């Protein structure tokens, strides 16, 4: 018997919901980054572990503090601050002083995200905002690389790691000198740019080189990205667009330059490109949403990366390329709105209404 007094709940349709939510996506991104973190620790030892911890803790703490100070519920639970922290740490040199990493984490969240209004409203990738700040503030520390696979890396840190705040980090020359044969502190891109030394592509592919804590293992990063893409938590089109664009543009330089420029595969697997293309250019908040816009955005990032690397003063350009891409993403979105069902073919710019035309006369 249907109960006379029974109360039924009212909801607005749809009454079905795809079982995925923002915190689940962010948690999965963290999960997908863990293999990269583990490999980084394997390569660079204790310092990498501490660096990842410092960056992440700073981001999460900043997020928590700012939301509490603005009298809102903490948003740490959406896991986005943890993603930012991990990504920031993975883009820093393994021996980067921890206090500087913490400053970077603070800047990432405070200036990269919170000032815009928090998750979803920031224009630039917060991790890269933090890194750009560090690049400008600590230009020496952020280009001090140490070789991978130093003996004893699991029991002692790189000398610069534990520098006291506001002091000059200890020199790493002695530490670097302990490197096993074949491993140098310089990154493959720096070697190429300043010493014209080439690095074997296979070593790049498997991450057997110096570089930022989490950027070296191209294959591993691709696999982790594939996991997210299969779960529809990462847009493979952006990765394809960035990598494709780098390959094509650097291919043009390679062919036209007659040996003056590195081959396209080197360009793909060196530096921060893989990490940037898979985990940062794909940041949902700061990338375009329209189908066409996504390809334009990816292609732009690829092209700018190649130009900075081959024609600019810096060995690496992924960070600036992505930040530039972030900056124009809203514009790309506005210009590439899809043609709606039943509407006539679209023009590039919105047509003026009759009223506006009238007003301009």
């Amino acid at each position: 018997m249907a109960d006379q007094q029974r109360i039924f709940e009212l909801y607005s349709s749809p009454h079905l919901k795809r079982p995925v939510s923002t915190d689940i996506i962010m948690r999965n991104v963290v999960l997908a980054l863990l293999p990269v973190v583990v490999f980084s620790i394997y390569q660079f030892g204790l310092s990498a572990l501490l660096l990842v911890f410092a960056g992440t803790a700073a981001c999460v703490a900043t997020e928590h503090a700012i939301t509490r100070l603005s009298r809102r519920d903490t948003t740490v639970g959406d896991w986005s601050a943890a993603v930012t922290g991990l990504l920031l740490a993975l883009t820093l040199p393994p021996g980067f002083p921890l206090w500087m990493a913490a400053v970077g984490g603070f800047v990432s969240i405070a200036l990269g995200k919170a000032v815009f209004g928090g998750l979803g409203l920031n224009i630039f990738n917060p991790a890269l905002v933090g890194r750009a700040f560090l690049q400008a503030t600590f230009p020496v520390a952020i280009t001090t690389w140490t070789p991978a696979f130093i003996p004893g890396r699991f029991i002692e840190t790189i000398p610069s790691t534990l520098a006291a705040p506001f002091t000059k980090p200890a020199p790493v020359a002695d530490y670097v000198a302990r490197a096993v044969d074949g491993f140098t502190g310089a990154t493959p891109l720096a070697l190429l740019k300043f010493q014209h030394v080439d690095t074997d592509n296979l070593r790049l592919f498997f991450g057997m080189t110096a570089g930022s804590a989490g950027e070296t293992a191209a294959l591993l990063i691709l696999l982790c990205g594939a996991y997210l893409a299969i779960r529809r938590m990462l847009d493979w089109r952006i990765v394809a667009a960035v990598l494709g664009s780098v390959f094509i543009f650097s291919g043009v330089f390679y062919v036209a330059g007659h040996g003056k420029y590195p081959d396209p595969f080197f360009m793909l697997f060196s530096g921060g490109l893989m990490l940037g293309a898979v985990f940062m250019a794909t940041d949902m908040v700061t990338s375009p949403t329209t189908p066409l816009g996504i390809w334009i955005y990816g292609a732009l990032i690829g092209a700018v990366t190649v130009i900075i690397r081959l024609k600019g003063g810096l060995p690496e350009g992924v960070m600036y390329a992505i930040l530039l891409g972030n900056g124009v993403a809203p514009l790309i979105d506005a210009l590439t709105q899809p043609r709606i069902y039943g509407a006539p073919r679209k023009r590039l710019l919105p047509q003026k209404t009759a009223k506006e035309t009238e007003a301009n006369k």
Partner: protein
Amino acid sequence: MIQRSAKTFGRGVHPPEHKDATKNLAVKRLGFAPELVVPLQQHLGAPARPVVRKGQEVVRGEPIAVPAGFVSVPMHAPATGVVVKIDKVVMATGNLAPAIIIKPYPGSSQEVLYTGEADIDAMTPDQIVAAVQDTGMVGLGGAAFPTHVKMAVPQGKSVDTVIANGCECEPFLTTDHRLMLEQHENLFRGIAIALKATGAREAIIGIEDNKPDVIDALRARLNNAPSAGAPIRVEPVKTRYPQGAEKMLIKALMRREVPSGGLPVDVHAAVFNVATLAQLAELMPRRRGLIERIVTITGPGVQKPGNYLVPLGTPLRYIFDQVGLSGGARQIILGGPMMGLSVASLDVPVTKGVSGILVLTEEETTARLNKIYPCIKCGQCLEACPAALNPSLMGDMARRREYKRMEEQYHLNDCFECACCAYVCPSNIPLVQYFRVAKALNREKKAPR
């Protein structure tokens, strides 16, 4: 067999189908409730005008209300009995609306006593349209738009194709599935009526490829006895929500797009739900009225799920007495889970547009009560929206109450509230609800005071 690459529209979603519980259950008849509540407006358009008085005796099938204009339909007595009163009752929307309340006689049978005769072959299209209006037929897929209005091709326009919509893309619902298996002769006769009324040259039956048994059965029937008039063909379409939305099905089957703000007739198409056509074929030749319909009653909160032939006006309370409501039942939905209406009262009657009654338990309702996060611009809603709108951006505008801008620059009125955007949104933003509110407020502002 399922075609390898079935036709489809662009975008959309594929929610879990949940059709297994009822798709193999033959349609069963439900008895008469102690009181039947027949609202005067069960369709889009003007409410019907009652032609019976309190205390008057009515015969099952007899007209009890007449249409008030062209975009309106009559109502017929669902059972033999006496008119208790004409009064305001609670409707599914929660509003009060006038209804004729009939108390069936205890001995009232299923027999329809009120009947006439119509020779469809001898009728002109205009006469068919008038006869269709007399049946009180509306779109049984859920929209409840008067069928005769769709059959009346306006001056200067033409229809070349009639589409029989057998997609049934809403999860849980299986009425069209059963109907196409059990009553396909009626379906073919109904298509013939629609072809004659519209003057179309051919008819296509569009069926989602999750119903291979129906596709096979209808094709076999067409091969054995090809239709005498205009050709009819069965076309599988991809199982993808909202494939059964009129404009989407036209795109899938004919590669034509109904212009924004236009009607199917603008691209020479007329779309009718298969249940509408089959019912029409049953009623029109005998000049009967629509007094019952097939309803899928299902969901985890129902003890005896199935496809039931329910007299119009049957209150939900009586239905649940028959099919059993489980203790955990928390939410009742009229229609499917994507577009259906959540109702609060068991006094709400089954009306012409109710294709399903879905009862959800706590497990499903709390699963949706997730935290709402800020929009992370993931773009999934853009990939899901069948109208190719930008729900993400419009959701932002709705929060800032820029309703006019949504309409003027972002085509709010092309949204037909299929809810794909809200279904995929990882931030659980109630996008469709925002759009409904925006549309309602825009309408309110335009309405003359």
